[in-house]
């Protein structure tokens, strides 16, 4: 996934995969997370999908097989993450925080056989006990637009903060 490749409007507008459709999909995802409907959020992922948050300051190509990430879930562990977060004993989210997920600057950076690489900026706010945590950076997706409904094959959330000031990543940013 290369977020820096030139925007190909004709590419992004071709076929069934338009940027507006991609934005709708991302806004739907954000709404599920805002509402803590994380089982429905997990259902957006294709079997075998990955979900990653790399270390701050590493390059785009960093690999969880050789570098220590914050989160590097395979499909099973992502399911388990959701299962865990819904329990009262996931203490860091009990009582639950309030969250708002902002998504913008959406670009379709590649489209091959109906599989889209998508980059977007994000800001996520998390409020709890009088403290507001702010997470920001870029999401990089690979989305299978052939599937009905669409399925996320991979999501990588690259933080722009130079350290993890909020301390925890107990939510889905």
């Amino acid at each position, binding site marked *: 996934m290369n977020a820096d490749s030139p925007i190909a409007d004709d590419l992004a507008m071709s076929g069934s995969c338009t940027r507006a459709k991609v934005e709708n999909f991302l806004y739907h995802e954000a709404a599920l997370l805002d509402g803590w409907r994380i089982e429905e959020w997990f259902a957006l992922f294709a079997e075998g999908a990955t979900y990653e948050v790399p*270390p701050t300051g590493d390059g785009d190509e960093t690999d*969880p097989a050789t*570098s*220590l990430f914050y989160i*590097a879930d395979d499909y099973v562990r992502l399911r*388990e993450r959701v299962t865990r977060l819904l329990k009262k004993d996931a*203490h860091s989210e009990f009582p639950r925080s309030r969250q708002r997920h902002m998504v913008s600057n959406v670009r379709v950076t590649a489209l091959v056989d109906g599989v889209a690489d998508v980059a977007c900026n994000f800001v996520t706010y998390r409020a709890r*006990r009088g403290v507001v945590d702010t997470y920001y950076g870029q999401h990089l997706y690979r989305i299978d637009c052939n599937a009905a409904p669409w399925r996320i094959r991979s999501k990588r959330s690259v933080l722009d903060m130079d350290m993890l000031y909020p301390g*925890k990543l107990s939510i889905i940013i």
Partner: protein
Amino acid sequence: MSIVAALPDSSGAYAGMIREDRERHLFRVARQAFTDEAVLEAERRQIFDRCWLYIGHGSEIAGNCDFLTRSVGGRELIFNRDRGGAVHAFLNTCPHRGATVVRESKGNALSFRCFYHGWSFNVNGRFASRFEEGNYGKDHYDGGCADLVQVPRLESYRDFWFINFDRNAVPLPDYLAQAKEFIDLVADQAEAGMEIIGSGQQYIIKANWKLLAENSVDAFHGLPTHSTYFDYLQNVGSLRMGKGFDASANRMTDLGNGHAVIEYGSPWGRPIARWVPAWGEETRDVVQRLRQGLIRRFGEVRGLRMAETSRNMIIFPNLVINDIMAITVRTFYPEAADRMAVSAWALGPCGEDAALRKLRLFNFLEFLGPGGFATPDDQEALENCQRGYRNMREAGWNDISKGMPRAGAPRNDDEEQMRCFWREWRRRMTAAA
């Protein structure tokens, strides 16, 4: 107003913050020790200015002229290797007007140059600018007054490097005392040596630093705080309490000088070398070979101890080496009485098999770090403690008495390891300035 500031001689106040009653089996710590900025200021002078503090692992500056910058003990430091391979620790401040000289977090350079006025330095710290004659006298070039200032003491044990701001501190091996044996149990895991993997995790916990020192070696909290992690192990088939899960290994050892370790049989997989079904059959043989290799090199007892037994160790005041479902090296420093900055790294064998390296990192993240299945709940616990200490005028004492009436050796889920820490804390806080 704090009771510390109110007393002309505050060492009595620090002694009074620990109440140990061996007859009644009570050990209590004043919550003021976690909240009072005056206590923190005294800790900076009495503890962080005098104890050996971890700066980094040799593998992080593996090549000649490699450098990194790091905050340690409230200072900004350069940790580097010079052209000949010798390791240095410098105070990262220009001898001229004080600007930090190196501003990148890491890199490789033949010299360092302060951008403000262009003073430059060899990587061995010597002043290297060649200004026109008449600008500076001989002492600037030969007398050392324009060189980077070295940290007073820098020593290593098994490639774990420590600094000390106290020129008169005891040598590092004496300071580490019995902790050396447990560093060996980690350092011996690979014949090619061990290395820090990638760049590590940096995060904030809004709690007093000593809460993390306690938490890092606290087995008592494991089940209540981390039940969701054990649920996860169960769900993925890793919770096997059968062969190899040997409760007789469970113990706590006072390592001297405030250091302590707990050892215990554990249900999780250990990349060195305890296989679990969640890793898949394809990794079973290679883990088994590692296990046999340890037994061959160290004998059955020590080899299996390295393979099977988990260990959480605190080296006073702020270094944690936990050899659990992966190896984490963790240090932390107070930014305020109620806030600490944490740095945590993964350690693994040099030249580790690629599949095992991947597994090691995957296993690390199932429990450890701000996005793991356990650490966020530890952070939550520590922040809740700090919040609870707002009640300290009426509810002023922590209890860490667990296991005091027990005859024989302390168990790993007792609280003797915290009592070791606090006795050393009291000793240092009440020592002559």
